[in-house]
């Protein structure tokens, strides 16, 4: 079990890293940035998988998690693919 303080530290530091990184993204790429970061927020998939695959959880818990797996997978797969499609159009001639 990781301590709450350690998790909070990670949370706060990651927000600062996020601010630093995103400030450098030019307006031209804001739409792909949104769909790409949206794909990253599909990381909930990890949590959903653990719960859907749990060996000793009740069926209700696993069913909810299976729906979560589906939603998060849409986010991940769709998000990265559509971002790729968009970025491929930004080419220099």
């Amino acid at each position, binding site marked *: 079990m*990781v301590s*709450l303080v350690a*998790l909070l530290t*990670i949370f706060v530091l*990651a*927000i600062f*890293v*996020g*601010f630093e*990184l*995103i400030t*450098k*993204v*030019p*307006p*031209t*790429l*804001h*739409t*792909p940035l*949104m*769909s790409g*970061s*949206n*794909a*990253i927020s*599909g*990381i*909930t998939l*990890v949590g959903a*998988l653990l*719960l*859907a*695959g749990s*060996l000793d*959880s*009740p069926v*209700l*818990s*696993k069913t*909810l998690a*299976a*729906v*979560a*797996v589906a*939603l998060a*997978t*849409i*986010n*991940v*797969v*769709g998000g*990265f693919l*559509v971002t790729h*499609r968009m970025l*491929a*159009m*930004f080419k*220099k*001639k």
Partner: protein
Amino acid sequence: MIPEQLRDILYVVAAVLFIYDLKWMAHPRTAVRGNATGAMGMALAVAATLLSEPLDWPYMLVGVAVGGLIGAVAAARVQMTAMPEMVGLFNGFGGGASVLVAGSALVAAVTAMTGAAAAGNGAGMQMKVATVASGLIGSVTFFGSYVAFGKLAEFLAVKWKLHTWQKVIKYSFSLAVVAGGVWYGVVAGIMPHGVGSNTGLLSIALIVCALIIGGLLLRKSDRFPGMNVVKWLSAVACLAVGGALVINPENFMLFWVLAGVAGVLGVILTLSIGGADMPVVIALLNSYSGLAAAATGFVINNTVLIISGSLVGASGIILTNIMCKAMNRSLANVLFGTMGPTGDTPAADEVYKTVKATSAEEIAMVLDGAQRVAIVPGYGMAVAQAQHAVRSLAQLLEAAGTSVDFAIHPVAGRMPGHMNVLLAEADVDYDKLLEMDDINAEMDQYDVAIVVGANDVVNPVARTDPNSPIAGMPIIDVDKANTVIVIKRSLSPGFAGIPNPLFALDNTLMFFSDGRKAINDIIAAVKEAA
């Protein structure tokens, strides 16, 4: 099975890959590589998870198969003009997944407890608070995003005729929400889960929430009397139910009531926001979906969720801030204020007395003598799907030795960067897309500015009239160009609802037509003249 430490190390690697993803998004040259890196990070995180403990596969596989198929098909088929809807919808899925993960974790934790002695031990304070946060933010995101999606696809406010598929989505979603609420409420009422009391009351609360959401989504207008009361009531109720859930986590009926009340809040918050503010809303929901994922990380003690969630949360907040600045409005004003003509807005007839209409032939003559041309696209270009025609016109002019630039206002379109993506789709070099501040500095050196389907973002009133609803909003100063050509279907106002004196200036020519047809007519006229 890999040991827990190895899994956590792989999570750190995945987080680093996500950071590189966002870092490489800083330039179009490296962005494709960045996105691929992010996808690798995700694959690594998923693989580490699957290898870390013995798992029961059927539920997972069904979820992955269904989601993967839908995601891949949607990503391959969506049109670039529909990107705002698509991103809005994906935000919602992220939020929905967070709610369900938190709910599922709560059910698992509560069921793992045996007897009253264990009550309160199975779920620690951190988990309880995080579950509330995740349920609340996630549900606001899910329902808010659905409303944003509906507005962008124009099937919530039924101003335009609906396609059949839009009706199907609209009615079936409302029905599903109501049916889900009623079903769960009734089942829980008959056969209480957990050891909670007053389940009957909670069932009724859940059903009421479902009915409100379902009803709101079917309404034909965006506002209704008492809207603000419901908004504040649902906000207070969210906190109250959240507090009750922290005290009494074994009654997880409360969790669904929380999700229901937060859903009402999400619907109402987004419903009242107008089309011009859509970029802010999309960016904000993007931020929420990240924060919901981070909260879920606290629920299940997972560092990679916390890191990725906060990266996305930060990203959304920055974009929200940029959009708000570009409209000279505060976030609170966008969320809670209203935008519309003020009392002393001049009458449209008065402003438009001296409007000059023009023809494609006249425009061709003006363009013939021009050295520098600026094209200012707006949402109208997206609606008319005119981006390819605009590119052809730019190429034609360049072939004749004219220099052509594109001026992009930060809030042109329906999401941050919307115009840039459309022009990139039409093969316009991104070096030609100039930001507002850069082009404004040189606007007086342009011979011709062509405005395609933009209105409020080129309204000089923002500079001149301190009482106007758009006062102080940064605009593209097209009125300073030698000649301004405005392509627009009519003199109807933009989202701010005010007349635009630009249209009546001495150096402005109005070309009343659909965006794509207008550009194609101009192309034909230019070719004929040459």
